[in-house]
């Protein structure tokens, strides 16, 4: 059992209850929403968000932020789509490996600037957010890669059903499993928590804080790259504005899941639940027949509500608020 997870047990329970309440509410009117098939579909729909949120979690744990994930996704997605168009015979596994490597490289650029040049992560990734999307435009000239320009293998892999679930869902499950190992069972995972929890103390413990942040950005970039392929394949189209603004959903999933923006606190379980919670809302609202305009406002309101509840849960621990009050004294 993970310690850091027990710490957050209450928050995760809360989130689970909120999801159940939502589910029951919707199912009361639309029973078909809670069928296993429909729920599996919600999970499938949320898979990319989960994968991205797990990478983002590493970054936020080290008290940084990666705003460039969606741009990285678009750039990498465009690149693999164009490669697939140009060389339809290139194996999908090679393309996936390429997506991972390219995402990793883009993440490493973020990480290097944070580590070596000591730049604030928010500035670095705001910059690369624009740059990566700009590069996607440069390489495509603004043109789209459409479904008929992609090879069948390219389109089919994420959807192929294995043991009852599509590969995309399995990839999310794999990412969750590996993340549990990474965050709870390896020294580098522990270093993510220590770096964000108290950077100075981490240095005194012999942890290289800059390098730890670099690794976090690499992880986030790598998963963004993978998601690039998954996204263009799933939606069967690649264009410059793919996943525009999606970085905010990713960060929201982390925050809803109890990852503290101040660093050092968070859990895989929480992050996954945070992402699923968002996914559930996005899927439930159209079912209840809420107009698309209201959908955005409602999901925004729910995010704020969830974050408020989280903040209150944190307050009852007494630590954060205490600090603030002592200052006022």
């Amino acid at each position, binding site marked *: *059992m993970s*310690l*850091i997870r*027990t*710490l957050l047990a209450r928050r995760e329970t809360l989130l689970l209850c909120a999801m159940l309440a939502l589910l029951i509410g919707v199912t009361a009117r639309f029973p078909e929403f809670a069928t296993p098939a429909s729920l599996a579909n919600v999970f499938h729909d949320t898979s990319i968000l989960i994968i991205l949120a797990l990478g983002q979690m590493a970054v936020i744990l080290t008290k940084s932020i990666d705003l460039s994930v969606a741009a990285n996704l678009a750039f990498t997605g465009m690149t693999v789509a164009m490669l697939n168009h140009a060389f339809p015979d290139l194996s999908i596994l090679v393309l996936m490996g390429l997506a991972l490597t390219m995402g990793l490289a883009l993440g490493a650029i973020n990480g290097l600037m944070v580590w070596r040049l000591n730049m604030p992560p928010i500035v670095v990734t705001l910059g690369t957010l624009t740059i990566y999307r700009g590069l996607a435009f440069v390489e495509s000239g603004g043109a789209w890669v459409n479904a008929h320009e992609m090879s069948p293998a390219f389109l089919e892999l994420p959807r192929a059903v294995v043991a009852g679930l599509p590969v995309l869902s399995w990839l999310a499950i794999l990412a969750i499993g590996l993340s549990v*190992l990474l965050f*709870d*069972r*390896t*020294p580098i*995972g*522990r270093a993510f*928590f*220590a770096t964000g*929890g*108290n950077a*100075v*103390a*981490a*240095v*005194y*413990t*012999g*942890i*290289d804080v800059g390098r730890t942040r670099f690794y976090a950005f690499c992880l986030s970039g790598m998963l963004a790259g993978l998601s690039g392929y998954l996204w263009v394949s799933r939606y069967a189209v690649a264009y410059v504005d793919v996943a525009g603004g999606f970085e905010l959903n990713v960060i929201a999933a982390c925050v809803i899941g109890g990852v*503290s923006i101040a660093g*050092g*606190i968070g859990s895989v379980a929480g992050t996954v639940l945070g992402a699923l919670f968002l996914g559930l809302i996005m899927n439930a609202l159209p079912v209840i027949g809420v107009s698309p305009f209201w959908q955005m406002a409602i999901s925004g309101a729910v995010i704020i509500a969830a974050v408020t509840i989280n903040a209150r849960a944190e307050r009852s*621990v*007494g*630590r954060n608020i*205490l*600090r603030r*009050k*002592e*200052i*006022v*004294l």
Partner: protein
Amino acid sequence: MNAMSPTQSVHTAEAQPLLEMVGISKSFPGVKALSDVALSLRAGHVTALIGENGAGKSTLVKCLTGIYQPDSGEIRVDGKPVRFATADAAQAAGVTAIHQETVLFDELTVAENIFLGHAPRTRLGFVDWAAMHARAAAILHGIDAPISTRVRLKDLSIAQRHLVAIARALSVDARIVIMDEPTAALSYKEVEDLFRIVARLKAAGKAILFISHKFEEVWRIAEYYAVFRDGRQVGAGLLADVDQHDLVKMMVGRDVAHVFPKGEPKIGDTVFSVRKLSHPTEYDDISFDLRRGEILGLYGLVGAGRSEVCQALFGVSRPGSGEVLLDGQPLVTRSPSDAIGAGIVYVPEERGRHGAITAMPIVSNMSLPSLRQTSRRNFLRMAEEFALARTYAERLDLRAASLSQPVGTLSGGNQQKVVIGKWLATRPKVIILDEPTKGIDIGSKAAVHAFMSELAAEGLAVIMVSSEIPEVLGMSDRVLVMREGRMAGLFDRQGLTPEILVRAATGNSEGRQ
């Protein structure tokens, strides 16, 4: 047990207390930090509050200053019940405090830190900067702290920060002044300064609550005492009626005789040599040898550069010039991880900032520098981590509900034990302990000292920075005294007296022996 009952009145002839607390209880998840405690403070008098680490002292302070709300009980000021919903309310009612963990802002200036939240205003309601700096300077002058009001806090030493925290408490016109272990970071000179301030406050008719683990201090400045144990008040009265044994017995429930457990040292070869270590501003020309099995005391006034030297040895900062040899080989430590890899560890003085990761559980904090030992093929093994943490928690008498508890929920002294334990667990060649018993109660202090002797007996070389003369004299084989960044003397244990140490630390040094 012969403790006086809390209800027994020992102040019959006296005027009504300025502040009274009755039946105060406060629980945290899993712990009852205070149960039904009473305390009264009198104008013009100092009440000493003592108790083991985790007895509930700081929790009481926080209830008194509006940071925590007691679950039950009543606080009365001048006989009238009051409720402090916020820290501001407590301040408005005339209660001010120097907290054990002072929270100040690194990026703000000294004056801003002192007056944050109650800055003097001009008639238009803007901050009156001139008045603020003038008043801050006056307060600092009043406590003999030669600190500019315009420097940023991050440029100050720990002791100077502490003085700023004291100035902050005094910047409020309060009738009730609470000091939660104010002397823990200070050397005897600053302690003397602080005592003069206390005497002045006393003469001005303030009621003072003074928390300390050092009995000499308690007897010097306090008239009344109150003893807490496990969240209960187990005694209160006039200090004149009791002696140290009585208090210790109330505190611990048994007799603890603190003799320094200094064994007959088996001192071996030189393991660690420092040659002409110099830094442009902090220290100059520091040289010494450290031998296996030896405890080298490092004494000096606060600001003498002791911690800076240690931090350079640990690779946190870079010396300007000089050489360090480990086992005869030149050693360059560019980062703490280099030093740890070479077998040198440093237990920092400022444990809140440098030592503990408060959101992490006790067990992960303790195992953090030892993950190489507790993991197998790069995978952590929780069982090993728990075993390690349990061993050191027991040896240091750590008081916690569980090892999975976040370190931030421990009492100040228990947090220190976690940090000390985490470094002892690494089993290094050379260990540098910066104020190892700061803020630790007497029972646990004995445990830490015994541990040090044991490590030395196993052949470890120990450097112990300490501002407590009895500790320096009791534990060290040799003592290096620093003054204003230079070596002011290197003394053998034999024939060393407090006078010699103080003379070397303050000036008119006798030279080296």
